[in-house]
Structures are given as structure tokens and as C-alpha cells.
């Protein structure tokens, strides 16, 4: 019995520690929720890195509005209930002014209603589902929505590369991948191209030979593969093994040094759409890539760049608002316009009426083990 | 009246005949002994009667009803109770609960009544407890009612097993080596108990036993099994002098049985 009481006492202490906030005055608190463990941890960690770096840079320059930014990073393990817990904790216990997150649209759809209900600004760096920002006027995003990238790639493949048949290999577990594939297909068939075969895989799979064997049999001239780099590498390798020699292509999910590391020669001659080219002469891009490499020892991927931008966007909005009140930040965010946009690493951003960013895309070719700039497409 | 009649019963395990063309019967209120060397198929006969093994062929008729295709719990509900060679008590539960579980079939309240704790439920629970008390008192276990079964001394565990079997309200009781592991004094006590149960509850008993003393003293009739076949049948004194039986035991250099 005594032991039982001890246990209860211990639990009581833990619980009370949990509810009483630890107040640190004089900082602006910003929350971030990413899946830094679990099945898509690799995206979560990249995103978290981008955010961390952004705030460190801001703080090194003296912070914003005279106060430092305190980043409170939460892990959600890619689970809906964890997102809800983390969000409530950030809002109610830590009293953050804004939240950055989540990576996946499905999780952002859990996060958005909570932020909207508490009137806390939320910027998702990478969730592409249009539904996310439709939740309410406090919800923003930093990435393209799917129609743009899909259409851009379809145009490029049909008009510039002049390839008239293509296959689609889509990650069914991902909103992003499905969205891109759908708009690619629509645009491509409208132009007169033909989709010869559609196959699917689940994110995190490692054996794609079954699907690739079927694609090979259909003999397409191009394979559209709108997935994330963690799967693309093995897919390309296995495709080449099976003797598929045609080019592959995808969206900004391809942008990662990991892709070239894993795929190596298999990625030669492939194309993807992205926000920026690392070759870009833009000083912003150059310093970002350089600093990121220095800090984390690797070239940033698109997720890191987007979340870096999302964080910087937030800081810029706080600056413009002259206040760290959530409603004022929100107003500042919508006040960016075509002429006075936010200039970030991933391009110049301003928002449409649904708080989706309007920005241009570039097409990148993988050539000689490097990403080579090919074309820019304006919205 | 024959309460149980077994005819042409056979059972095989992977080609080995454990019980072969066995015929026997039990009269009402009789105490029948089954003896035989180790591996003769005695326990298998019990398992066949209680429905744990499906017979290869043959019939088992209990009170005029074929039971060889019934499930064990259905057979128990018809009135056949048994004990096991190694006690199979509900080890983590109290003595009282052990007996009450056995009364499950007798006192069954509808599940809805149970959920709502209706008056019928409370009444039945009370009756059940009362009856369990009677049985425990009869077996001198009432003082031990709150003990965990596995903490009882071995002799009491065996007694509890019989008490539990009796709580199912049987007509026919199958006892599988109830005296195993007992000293002569305890065995003597057991003999008294078994005859007493028979007289008090008016039931029929089949007994598997190695202790010849026990068998010879309380069984009215004995059948002898060897290699799954019946090799002898008769009154204790007939069996004692049957040369086939002696050969079956001694021929195989078994432990000395006739102590």
C-alpha cells in the first residue's frame, strides 16, 4: 500500500508540473509542431532544422521588436492525437503567438481548427491540401498548392521535352503526391499526351520492383513520380536495374541532397519542379544554403527551405505588425502584395484570398550529379 | 439401471490405438474401478466420456442419450463431473470462488439482469453463496474459503477438486487417481469420503486408481485395461486372482502395484 501511495504522489508531482506554466518573460514565444519521430521523421527533422536556423539568425541579430524569439518545438510522432496535445499545450500552457507546422496535410487539418479556435496564427510550410487554409482566416501556408506544380511539369514534359506518353507512379499515402499526379494527368491529357499506365506505392516502401516491372511493360517515354526523395532514390535505382531508361520527373519533394546520394547515376537526366535553384545567384539563397550546410552538415532540402521561409515570413509579419499579438500578425501577413511581397529563399511570396502563396516555380534537371537550372515558370 | 453404457469405443493418436473396442457399463449408484498399468488408456477413457477427445468410433450412452459428439461443457451439464490426475484448480482464485464457478450451470441469471444488478441477480448470488458454503462445509473446507487455491496443502487441493466437481451437481462422478501422492492415512480418509459422498449425494462413481488398497476396498466392480483393451472385469476378489491381470502388471516390470 505504501508503494502505491508513493506512486500516486510521484504521479501527482508530474501532473502538477505539467499544468503550471513555466513563465519566462521578455520573449516572443513561437511554437512549432513537426513529426520528428515516427514514419515521416525525416521530413519533420528537416522542417524543424529550417525553423531553428531561421530563429537563431533572427535572435543573433537582436531578435524582433526588441525581444528574442523563443522557439518551442514539439514532436507529434505523425499522430493526430499528439498534434492536438502539442497544439493545446503550446497555446494554453506556453501561450505562443503563432504555430509553425505541420508537414503533412492530414495533420495540419488537425492543427488548423485548434489554432483557428484560439485565434493563433498558423503557417504550414509544406501542407498542400487546399482544405487546410480554408479552415479559417488564421491559417496560412508557404508552399505551392498542387495544381500549379502538376501543370507546370505537364507543360514542360509535353512542350519542351516533347514526350507524348508518360506513366505515373504515385504515393497513395500522400496527399501531396496524389494531388500533383492528378493535376499532371489533367494538364497532360489536355495537351494531347497519353498516360499509358498508373501505378502506386506507399511511402516508406522499399521494394518497388513489382510496380516498375509493370511500368516497363507499358513502355512510356516519361515517368511522372511526384513523391518525396526518401522513396525516389530506391525507385530510380530499381527502375534502372530493371532496364527502364526513360527520364523520370517530379515535384519539389525531389529536392534533397539525399536523392543524389541514394540514386547516384540513376537520377541522371531526370527533371523536377522546385521553388528555387541552388545555383541561383540570389544572395538570399546562397547564404541560406551556405549557413544550412555549416550548421547541419548537409545541403537543405525543399522542406527545410520552406520552413525556413515560413519562420522568416512570420518574423517579417511581426515586424510589420509592430506587435506580437496574433490578430495583428495575421493582418500583417495578408498585407503582403504583388508589389511588396515577402522575399524569401523559395521566392517572393504574397497571399491570395485563401491565404495560399502566389510564387513562381523553376524546373531543374539533374545533370552530372548536380541540380542544373532549366527554366522558370511564372504563376 | 445402467446409467452409462460404452460400446465399441475406440480412439487413436497418430496410428496408435489408445483405446480399442472398449465395452463397459456402470450401474446406478455403483462405484466402478478402472485399473491398468501406466499408459493403458484409463485417462483417455475419461477424456472420451467427458468429450475432450472425439472417439474414432463407438458409442457412449448416458441416461439413454448419446453423448459422444457433445462438447465437454454440455456433458457436464447433463450430469457428469470429473477430477483430474493432476489437480486443475483455478489456482489464483479463492477456495470459495473455485466452488462458485462450478455452480455456474446451476445458477444462471440472464446477462441483462447481471448488468442491472436486478433483484433476481442478488437473490441468486445469495443462494449460490449459501450452497457453496454447504458444499465447503461438507468437505471441511469452509474455514479455508478465502485462501488462494494454490496455497492449500496438497491433500486439501485434492479435496477441493472433488468438492468443486460435486458443486456441478453431478449424477456420475469420474475420479482420476484421487489418492495419488497421498500417504496411507490420507488415503484411508479419502476412501471414507468417497463412499460417504456416494451415499449422501446418491451418485454413481467411476474411479481410476493405482492404490490397490483403495480400489479393492471401495469398488464394487473393477475393469482392467491394458493397451487400451479390456482384459478383465469383475468383483475385486476376482480381479485380484486373475492371471491375466497379474501378467499385465508384472510382465512389464511396472512398479509393484499390489501393496
Amino acid at each position: 500500500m505504501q508503494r502505491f501511495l508513493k506512486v500516486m504522489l510521484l504521479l501527482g508531482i508530474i501532473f502538477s508540473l505539467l499544468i503550471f506554466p513555466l513563465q519566462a518573460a521578455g520573449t516572443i514565444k513561437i511554437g512549432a509542431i513537426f513529426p520528428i519521430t515516427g514514419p515521416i521523421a525525416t521530413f519533420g527533422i528537416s522542417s524543424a532544422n529550417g525553423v531553428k536556423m531561421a530563429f537563431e539568425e533572427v535572435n543573433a541579430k537582436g531578435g524582433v521588436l526588441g525581444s528574442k524569439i523563443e522557439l518551442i518545438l514539439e514532436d507529434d510522432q505523425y499522430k493526430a492525437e499528439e498534434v492536438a496535445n502539442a497544439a493545446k499545450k503550446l497555446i494554453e500552457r506556453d501561450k505562443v503567438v503563432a504555430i509553425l507546422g505541420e508537414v503533412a496535410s492530414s495533420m495540419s487539418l488537425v492543427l488548423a481548427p485548434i489554432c483557428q479556435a484560439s485565434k493563433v496564427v498558423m503557417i504550414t510550410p509544406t501542407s498542400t491540401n487546399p482544405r487546410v487554409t480554408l479552415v479559417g482566416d488564421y491559417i496560412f501556408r508557404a508552399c505551392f498548392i498542387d495544381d500549379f506544380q502538376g501543370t507546370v511539369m505537364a507543360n514542360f514534359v509535353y512542350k519542351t521535352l516533347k514526350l507524348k506518353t508518360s506513366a505515373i507512379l504515385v504515393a497513395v499515402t500522400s496527399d501531396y503526391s496524389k494531388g500533383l499526379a492528378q493535376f499532371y494527368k489533367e494538364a497532360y491529357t489536355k495537351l494531347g499526351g497519353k498516360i499509358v499506365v498508373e501505378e502506386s506505392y506507399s511511402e516508406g516502401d522499399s521494394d518497388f520492383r513489382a510496380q516498375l516491372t509493370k511500368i516497363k511493360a507499358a513502355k512510356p517515354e516519361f515517368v511522372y513520380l511526384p513523391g518525396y526523395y526518401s522513396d525516389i532514390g530506391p525507385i530510380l535505382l530499381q527502375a534502372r536495374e530493371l532496364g527502364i531508361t526513360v527520364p523520370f520527373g517530379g515535384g519539389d519533394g525531389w529536392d534533397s541532397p539525399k536523392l543524389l546520394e541514394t540514386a547516384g547515376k540513376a537520377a541522371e537526366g531526370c527533371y523536377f519542379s522546385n521553388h528555387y535553384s541552388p545555383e541561383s545567384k540570389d544572395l538570399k539563397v546562397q547564404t541560406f544554403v551556405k549557413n544550412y550546410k555549416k550548421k547541419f552538415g548537409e545541403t537543405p532540402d525543399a522542406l527545410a527551405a520552406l520552413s525556413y521561409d515560413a519562420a522568416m515570413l512570420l518574423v517579417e509579419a511581426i515586424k510589420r505588425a509592430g506587435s506580437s499579438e496574433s490578430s495583428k500578425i495575421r493582418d500583417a501577413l495578408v498585407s503582403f502584395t504583388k508589389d511588396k511581397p515577402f522575399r524569401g529563399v523559395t521566392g517572393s511570396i504574397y497571399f491570395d484570398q485563401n491565404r495560399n502563396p502566389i510564387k513562381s516555380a523553376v524546373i531543374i534537371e539533374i545533370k552530372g550529379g548536380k541540380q542544373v537550372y532549366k527554366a522558370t515558370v511564372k504563376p | 439401471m445402467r446409467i452409462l453404457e460404452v460400446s465399441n469405443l475406440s480412439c487413436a493418436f497418430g496410428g496408435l490405438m489408445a483405446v480399442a473396442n472398449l465395452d463397459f457399463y456402470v450401474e446406478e449408484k455403483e462405484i466402478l474401478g478402472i485399473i491398468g498399468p501406466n499408459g493403458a488408456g484409463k485417462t483417455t477413457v475419461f477424456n472420451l466420456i467427458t468429450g475432450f477427445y472425439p472417439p474414432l468410433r463407438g458409442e457412449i450412452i448416458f441416461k439413454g442419450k448419446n453423448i459422444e459428439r457433445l462438447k465437454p461443457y454440455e456433458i457436464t451439464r447433463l450430469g457428469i463431473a470429473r477430477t483430474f490426475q493432476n489437480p486443475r484448480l483455478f489456482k489464483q482464485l479463492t477456495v470459495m470462488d473455485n466452488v462458485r464457478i462450478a455452480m455456474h450451470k446451476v445458477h444462471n441469471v440472464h446477462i441483462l439482469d447481471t448488468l442491472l444488478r436486478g433483484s433476481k441477480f442478488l437473490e441468486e448470488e445469495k443462494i449460490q453463496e449459501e450452497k457453496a458454503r454447504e458444499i465447503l462445509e461438507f468437505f471441511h473446507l469452509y474455514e479455508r474459503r478465502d485462501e488462494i487455491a494454490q496455497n492449500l496443502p496438497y491433500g486439501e487441493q485434492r479435496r477441493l477438486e472433488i468438492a468443486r466437481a460435486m458443486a456441478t451437481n453431478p449424477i456420475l462422478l469420474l475420479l482420476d487417481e484421487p489418492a495419488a501422492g497421498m500417504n496411507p492415512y490420507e488415503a484411508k480418509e479419502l476412501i471414507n469420503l468417497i463412499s460417504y459422498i456416494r451415499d449422501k449425494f446418491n451418485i454413481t462413481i467411476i474411479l481410476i486408481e493405482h492404490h490397490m488398497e483403495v480400489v479393492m476396498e471401495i469398488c464394487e466392480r473393477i475393469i482392467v485395461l491394458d493397451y487400451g483393451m479390456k482384459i478383465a472385469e469383475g468383483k475385486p476378489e476376482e480381479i485380484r486372482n486373475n492371471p491375466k491381470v497379474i501378467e499385465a502388471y508384472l510382465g512389464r516390470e511396472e512398479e509393484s502395484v499390489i501393496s
Partner: protein
Amino acid sequence: MKRNYLLLILIIIFLVYLGRLARGLNPYFYQILVFWGINSILAMSLNLINGFAGQFSIGHAGFMAVGGYFSSALSVYHGERFISLLNFLPLNIAQIVVFFVFLLLGGLFSAILGLIVGIPTLRLKGDYLAIATLGFGEIVRVTILNLDIVGGPRGFPGIPQRTDLSWVIFWFIICLLVIRNIIFSSHGRAIISIREDEIASETMGINTTFYKVLAFIIGAFFAGIAGGLFAHYLMMLHPSSFTFFRSVEILLMIVLGGMGSITGSILGAFILTVLPEALRGFTYLRLVIYSIILIGIMLLRPQGIMGGKEFSPLIIKKIYARVKENENTRSK
């Protein structure tokens, strides 16, 4: 007897009302209470299968998912229609009625699935049953991943928020009462006897298949209810909430609390709801510490915290009586 029911109903109403009052609490705290309640329902219902009936099942997340998705699909696709059918009632009452019915249907659907799965698989024993139920859970998850009508791998958004602490408390009490009333009855002893020794239990005239399946169905029903509460609280369902690890987590709750102890389940649910939250400050180290604590508890107290005993007012009375007795003997 009648007065007893009245008292019980009054207590339930009071506790549910307490849930309404709790809205004034810090929303984070409130949310933890909600999840504790839901987890308790899950743990108690799994405990009926694992701890009391002794049937090693690790597919509870599957039942939770089934109930959650089913009631959510009803809410999303038919909710408005049913509420408008009840237009003679005030809107909020109509919502409550419809939610209650949908939740119940979700639980029943899950229970029916429990019946279909239970009858064949419960013939298996021990680890074979465990792996079969694990397989069932995975099959449910993969099926959901392939059901486009509930969003498949992209999650199922747009579920109305109906669950609040009052609902959770209400179902928590129902679950607690049902399981307690079963366990402390002739039926319950039959269920427990299966855990102790299935063969002996059968010999006692107990239809073990029936009781195993019964425990399984009741467990599945409450898991389905818990899933529905969960869905209508989060407003969004995603298959990643119902992986094998979810089942393991529920199993952990009952093992930590002690197998075969209802109060233990509630305690275990508390620990596994609060511990991850308490560790939030560690961000990257969080799960490492979590797993070390887990292993530590198992090594130090393998039989669980309650070790199969119940913590109830009765025990306090007993201890009190014993203390009294000691005093008396000493004074003599």
C-alpha cells in the same frame, strides 16, 4: 433496490455535470482529461479480454478504428440529414441524440466485427491468438488505407466536434459499471475461470467459447465507442492513429496497471496519457526516455502496479478493519 438505482443515476448525472463545469479549466488540462477518459475505456475493455478472460489480444486498435471510422462516416455523410429529421427538438438536443445513436452504432458495428473475428480466432491459444489479432488490427488499418470514402491514407477530415468531457465521463462510467458488474457475477467468474484453466472451466460446465466471444464482443464494443469519442473530439481521423503501436500502447496500460484489475487499467491509462505529455520538454529525447521508463517499470514491477488487485473503498474498509483488529489484539 429502487432507491439504489436512483442514487446511481444521480451520481452519473452529477459526474456528467462535472464534465460541463470542467470547461472552465485550462483547455490543455481539459484535453488531457478527455484523452485519459478515452484511454481508460480502451484499457478497461481490453482488460476484460486480456486480463480477465486471459485471451491474449493485441488488435484493440483495430476495433477502435472500426468504431471511430464508422461513427464518423455516419456523422459526416448522414449527420445533417438525421439532425434535420429531428427538427421538432431543439438543435443541441437533436445533435446529442444523433451523436449518441451514431456512437452506439459505431460500437455495435465494432462488436459485430468482434463476433465475426472472435468465433474463428478465439479457438487459437496464447501467442497464436496474439499474432492473429495483431493481424486483424493490421488488416483493418490497410482496409481503411484503401477506403477512399473515408479519405484512405490522407485522413478523414470534417468530422463535427461532438465529444466533450461529459460524454467521456458518461461512457467511462457505463464501461466501468458494465465491466465491474460482469466481473463480479457468475458470468464474470466463468470468464475468469477461462483465464485460470480453460479445460477445468469447460469441465465445470462453462461454455468457454461463448464466454470468450462474449468478452471479446464487449471489449470490441467499448473500443468502438472509444474510437467514436476520439474521432468526434479530434474532428479528424488518420490511419496512423491506429497502427500496431496503438494496440501495444493499450496493452501497456493494462500491463502497467496490472492485468485483471479495473482500477489498475484506469491508473495505467493515466500514466500513459500523462507521461508522454510530462516528457514534452525533452523534444528529441522524449521517446528515448519514455522507452527507458517503460523497461524500467517492467523490470522493477513486472506484475504491474496494482498486480491484479482492485483499489476500491472496500479495500480501504478492509485495511481499516485489519488495523482495528491489530490494535485490539495489542491492547489485550
